[in-house]
């Protein structure tokens, strides 16, 4: 059979499997199968391209490109697989950002090569392919640099958002500059103009991500993920490769929808995320608000806390990212199991955006083998807080901050929260009184029903487990 037809059939199969895979990925029961189907689809696509390149005589005479392709796949595949295999579950958002950046970078590089080919008059070119090449270059590098920035922010190199009027003005200027350079290229600016375009895209990406706070990074990564999809679709147009158009567009569209869904889960709008700069304001110092009554908090020791927990009927655990970074999910489960063994009714309340990405906490608790039956989402658990004896907040902060209910000035106003303050006792396990990711103070610490139990989540819970043991 003609290798072109054979490879086209394989591409068609892979497109079909991608769509089925995506469909399955949105159902809890079939999600893993969905990912596997997509991976099989990818295998088909890779085989198809091998047939096309080797069987179709695409390789240039006397070039070592064939060897380089194999080496490139092996090197990149190995690095990617190992990194993905050994990254800690808590670092997952960073990992996705990094992998997404790789895809964006690849799309930008492909566009660069294609532009060089156009400039040298190699191969046929039509206006659509030319435009797509520029689009791929801009969006690809935007995605690459943006993802690296997001990675940096999530890794804690630069957590706070930085906003100023100057920065907003600058972004606008750079955006106009970006358009100008594209026009310049359209009028025959040549290779020089193309490199300027790549440079301006870099600056624009930095200006776009710098003002966004760490808490909103998941939304940004999701947005950049769909950008990469579009960049890949653009390279599909410039290379005349339908498989890339289909896959890239699928990701671009579903990624955009997913971004909007994430914003909805956080009760934010996408423009709010991109331009409002949550966490940009000066960090409020606990108890330092002018005019307000001095705020006091109560502390509790491990032994007293063990005693308290020994005499209650129901406990709701509210895990947050602080628990995850301290890798305290396992010891938390141990504590929960001990309490359950004493007849205490233990439940976990998982906020939609607990952790650093929607659904991140479910993954982390599942990793620690917390029984699925003990996990409850926001709507299920909120009515139960009133009847519950102890709300045990471990490393969570903004998701239990009551000011989200009434304080219109608060950046998290309107976000659905867990009603921990309605429980009879509130225990907050936390390193200090410092504000959380959104950079705002939390009045729940000063609630008369609240006991603070200071310490890093793992050490503190470990101490508590010991204390519960000795208390018998």
């Amino acid at each position: 059979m003609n290798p072109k037809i054979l490879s086209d059939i394989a591409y068609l199969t892979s497109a079909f499997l991608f769509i089925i895979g995506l469909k399955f990925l949105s159902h809890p029961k079939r999600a893993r199968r969905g990912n596997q189907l997509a991976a099989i689809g990818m295998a088909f696509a890779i085989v198809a391209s091998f047939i096309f390149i080797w069987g179709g005589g695409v390789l240039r005479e006397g070039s070592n490109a064939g060897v380089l392709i194999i080496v490139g796949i092996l090197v990149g595949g190995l690095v990617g697989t190992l990194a993905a295999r050994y990254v800690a579950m808590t670092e997952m958002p960073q990992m996705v950002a990094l992998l997404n950046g790789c895809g964006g970078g690849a799309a930008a590089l492909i566009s660069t090569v294609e532009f060089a080919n156009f400039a040298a008059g190699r191969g046929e070119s039509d206006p659509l392919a030319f435009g797509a090449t520029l689009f791929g270059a801009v969006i690809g590098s935007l995605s690459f640099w943006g993802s690296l920035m997001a990675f940096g922010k999530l890794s804690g190199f630069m957590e706070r958002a930085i906003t100023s009027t100057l920065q907003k003005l600058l972004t606008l200027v750079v955006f106009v500059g970006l358009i100008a350079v594209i026009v310049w290229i359209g009028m025959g600016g040549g290779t020089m103009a193309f490199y300027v375009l790549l440079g301006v895209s870099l600056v624009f990406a930095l200006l776009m991500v710098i003002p966004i706070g760490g808490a909103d990074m998941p939304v940004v990564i999701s947005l950049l993920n769909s950008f990469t999809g579009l960049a890949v679709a653009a390279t599909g147009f410039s290379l005349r490769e339908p498989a890339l158009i289909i896959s890239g567009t699928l990701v671009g569209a579903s990624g955009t929808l997913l971004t909007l869904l994430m914003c909805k889960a956080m009760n934010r709008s996408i423009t709010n995320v991109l331009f409002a700069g949550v966490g940009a304001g000066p960090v409020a110092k606990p108890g330092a608000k002018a005019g307000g009554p001095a705020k006091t908090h109560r502390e509790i020791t491990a032994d007293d806390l063990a005693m308290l927990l020994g005499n209650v009927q129901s406990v709701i655990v509210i895990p947050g990212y602080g628990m995850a970074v301290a890798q305290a999910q396992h010891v938390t489960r141990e504590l929960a199991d001990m309490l359950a063994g004493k007849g205490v009714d233990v439940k976990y309340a998982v906020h939609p955006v607990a952790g650093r990405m929607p659904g991140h906490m479910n993954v982390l608790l599942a990793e620690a083998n917390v029984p699925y039956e003990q996990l409850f989402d926001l709507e299920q658990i909120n009515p139960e807080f009133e009847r519950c004896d102890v709300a045990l907040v471990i490393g969570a902060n903004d998701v239990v901050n009551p000011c989200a209910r009434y304080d219109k000035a608060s950046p998290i106003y309107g976000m659905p929260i867990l009603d921990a303050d309605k429980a009879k006792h509130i225990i907050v396990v936390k390193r200090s009184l410092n504000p959380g990711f959104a950079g705002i103070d939390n009045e729940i610490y000063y609630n008369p029903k609240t006991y603070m139990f200071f310490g890093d989540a793992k050490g503190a819970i470990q101490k508590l487990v010991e204390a519960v043991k000795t208390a018998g």
Partner: protein
Amino acid sequence: MNEGTLILYSIYIFVLAVFVGFEVISKVPVQLHTPLMSGTNAIHGIVMLGGMLVLAHAATPLLVWLGFAAVVLGAMNLFGGFVVTDRMLEMFKTKKPAAGSKS
């Protein structure tokens, strides 16, 4: 196929794929947002194939290396993406489905 038909044909594919992309994930529970993001991230790893094509065509040493870099980055995206997604979803495997389960 002549030039015009080919362009139109690409646009057809694009428009249809936009609709499929929107339709296919309309109702996704919150706990699957992260895996779904990661899964779509893996699918755009197909950019590796674009890298392979430009590398195969590359006419100058500079372009060869740019193409090679594209293949390496694409392969990281592709393989890393699927592995990381599978690791996340593996955690859910013995669990009951979230929808409709009442304690």
